[in-house]
C-alpha cells in the first residue's frame, strides 16, 4: 500500500522534497514509516525525537497503524512550542 508523506520546514529542507508517495507494508506503523524515511533521506535522522506526526491532519503517536492512501505529515516543532527536551544535531 502507499501513503502520501508531506514534509514541512526543517523536515522539508532535510528531505529536499515537499511530498512523496511511499510504499509501506500492510499495517505498517508510523515508527516503521519513519525508519524507511530516514533510510531514504539520512539527514532526517538528525531531527530524531523532535518530529511529531499527523495522519490525515490529526496529531497521532508513532504506534499509529497506517492505511492505504493516508496523508502523513512530518511536523517539526512549531514556532512557539516547547521542544519538550527533544535532541537533534
Amino acid at each position, binding site marked *: 500500500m502507499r501513503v502520501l508523506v508531506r514534509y*514541512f520546514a526543517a523536515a522539508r529542507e532535510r528531505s529536499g522534497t515537499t511530498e512523496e508517495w511511499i510504499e509501506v507494508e500492510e499495517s505498517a506503523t508510523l515508527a516503521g514509516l519513519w525508519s524507511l524515511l530516514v533510510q531514504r533521506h539520512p539527514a532526517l535522522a538528525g531531527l530524531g525525537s523532535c518530529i511529531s506526526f499527523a495522519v490525515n491532519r490529526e496529531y497521532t503517536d508513532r504506534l499509529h497503524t497506517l492505511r492505504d492512501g493516508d496523508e502523513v505529515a512530518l511536523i517539526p516543532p512549531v514556532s*512557539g512550542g516547547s*521542544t519538550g527536551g527533544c535532541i537533534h544535531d
Partner: protein
Amino acid sequence: MIELVQGKIDLERVIAAVSHPGAGATVIFVGTTRDHNEGREVIRLEYEAYEEMAISELQRLVLTAQTQWPETRAAIAHRLGEVPLGEPSVVIAVSSPHRAQAFAACRFLIDELKKSVPIWKKEFFQGGEVWIGTQQGTPLPSSWVRPDS
C-alpha cells in the same frame, strides 16, 4: 473568520469579524516580527504552514475557546511567507459582552496557537538561518542549514 494570508493582515477586517451589538469588549492580540532574538540581529522572517491542518487546528482552538467562554466570538489571521520586521505576523480578535472573558479567551488562543498549530518561523540573521522551535538557544550548524550551498 480564520485565515492564512500572504501579504499584510487587514486589522480592521479581523476586528469587524467579531463585532456585534452585544459585544461590550473586543480584545486584540497583534504579534509582530522582532528585530532581535537570543542576542542575534534578525534580518528577516519567513513563515510556512501545513495550511489544511493549520486551518483545522485553528478552528478546533476557536471552538474550544467558545466552549470555555461561551459568549465570545473569535477571529484569527496568520500571515505566511516573508514578513518584514515590525509587521504583524498574527492577529487575534475576541469579542464578548464583558472584558474578562475576551482577555482570557484571547490569551488562550495565542498560547495554544503557538503550541500546536503547524506554522513554522524561519529566522534569518547575519551569518545564518534557523527554524525557530527546532533549537533551544543555539543555532543549528550552518553545515546543514544551507545544504544546497
